[in-house]
């Protein structure tokens, strides 16, 4: 079952006087339950592709369909609603809300979805237990290590069972041991809960864990390997 379909997607940025082609004619399909990595050097277009698939940015041409929803026919508020219910995000810099505790950060997405307070609290604690943060529910982000913050970010991304999790260089700010632990955890969730993961990375460890590798160079898709 197709969860993501990109057809001839192009994206350019204007940097001063120069027009930069971030993505050129990208076409690819991601099936449900995949554990895929978009790899390539810096400036190859990995983050841009994830932003487009996540509906955070709009392509110049081509079409993107996520879980049956064609982005080119959706308004900003519809895209926000789609992100809320179907897409989870894990960012390189964790991007937790600093004034909320670990549990409240995880609860926040469920709150936006209208889940009751009691269910929110139960599910948030359960998912934090799953990612190895039992007992750290009330810590604020500043009181957690980088690895622990990224675990909270993963918990926030998957707590409401999205169709797809987009992780933009999730291990970039972590040491190798912590990064590997995080990848194992995400792999486990992929296998147990059939959550689709797409990473952007140039970390070899992430590429080793991924079951599919999509290579980008200068905005073009140059290789697509299924292990």
């Amino acid at each position, binding site marked *: 079952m197709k969860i993501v379909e990109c057809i001839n997607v192009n994206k350019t940025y204007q940097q001063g006087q120069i027009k930069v082609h971030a993505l050129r004619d990208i076409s690819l399909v991601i099936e449900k339950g995949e554990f895929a990595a978009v790899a390539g050097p810096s400036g190859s277009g990995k983050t841009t592709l994830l932003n487009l698939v996540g509906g*955070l940015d709009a392509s110049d041409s081509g079409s993107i369909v996520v879980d049956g929803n064609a982005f080119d026919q959706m308004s900003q*508020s519809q895209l926000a609603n789609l992100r*809320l219910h179907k897409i989870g995000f894990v*960012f390189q810099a964790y*991007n937790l809300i600093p004034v909320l505790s670990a549990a409240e950060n995880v609860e926040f997405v469920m709150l936006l979805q209208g889940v009751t307070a009691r269910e929110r609290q139960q599910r948030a604690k359960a998912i934090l237990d799953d990612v190895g943060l039992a007992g750290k529910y009330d810590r604020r982000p500043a009181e957690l290590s980088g690895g622990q913050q990224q675990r909270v970010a993963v918990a926030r991304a998957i707590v409401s069972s999205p169709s797809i999790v987009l992780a933009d260089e999730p291990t970039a700010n972590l040491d190798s041991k912590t990064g590997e632990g995080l990848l194992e955890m995400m792999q486990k969730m992929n296998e147990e809960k059939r959550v689709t993961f797409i990473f952007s990375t140039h970390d070899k460890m992430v590429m080793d864990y991924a079951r599919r590798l999509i290579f980008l160079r200068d905005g073009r898709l140059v290789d697509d390997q299924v292990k």
Partner: protein
Amino acid sequence: MSVDVKMAWRNIWRNPRRTILTICAIAFASLLLVFMLSFQFGSYETMINTSVKIHTGHLQVQADEYQDKKSIRLVVPNPEKIANLLDKIPKVEAYTFRGQAFSLISSKERTYGAVVKGIDPEREATVSRLKALIRQGDFLSKDDTDQALVGKLLARNLRVNIGDELTVVGQGRDGSIAATVVKVKGIYSSGIDEFDRASIHIPLETFQEVYTMRGVVHEVVVIADSLGDIDTIKRTIKANLLSLNLKKALTVLDWNELMPGLRQSIEMDLVSGVIFYFLLVLVVAFSILNTFLMAIFERTREFGVLMAIGTTPGRLTKVLLIESMTMTLVGIVAGIVIGSLVTVYFQSHGIDISGASELLSQFGITGRMYPKLSLLSAVSGPLAVLIITFFAAIYPALKVRRMRPVEAMRAV
């Protein structure tokens, strides 16, 4: 507590120093507005009450057109009928009758023009402050006939003192020459140059006799229990005047109409005050605007993340408005409470204005001034702060709505 409120509250305390400074600015502006407005309203009331108790009373019953022409022939023909009417109105504190005519006043050495006022000594003491203004000699008594009270400046100009004689020459109501000789019994000083320089007071009966008034007067002067009762009394008198079946038309004028200069001074002072308050509130509004723009710049990346995980721009706007309004309300409440306490203190103790300007003394105000706290003075200024800071906070809150998640998340 909802998560929106919880987030807003925690965001407020992200930078405690900035938050406290902002709240202090709002509180100080509110405090200042409460006190200044109370002080202004209190000073207006003092000015009005002081002026009416020297000059006009709160209300006067006069012959139609007397206020404009001041003709000796325009009289209130049956003052006792008006007295009967006023006796039945509960909010009337006191009233008296006056006659007045412009005359030449001569001492042995000099002659000056002045207004000669005929007053009922006993009634006048209940209506005006004239008795309290006597600086030399004594106030008129019930049985006095050819005695006079003279303004301090006029006495100086005429070079007379207590016991000296003054010759009064004017025109009677019937066109005859009105002339008499009176002795200076008292010298008064109100601080109001015009009053002290150009008026003398003689007993009403003497006045009526000298000026051929035959029992009539020019003014029935009324003092109300309070300023708020004036309109009611005015309406009541007007309604009842018709039933008296008087031959000549009478009119009822309040202090506004009797002393248009005082009203204009108050209006001018109020306008300049409002301009000052507006500028004060504007400064506070810019302070709030600055605080919130800074908060938005600092948290742009966070807003991008919140939008990325599905927060609608409307919700972000709501959180920001909760933040701004919470700070504003805390500041305003603190300002109203402290401002009211300060005002109440000075309301009972007064503010020393013994070195007050010449302008204030022209309204008879010397010594101490008392602010007056009212619902209007306690609420109107802070309410203006609330409204203007709300609009100042709307701009940064709406700015969030125009953000795109991917651009916001790139912000450093």
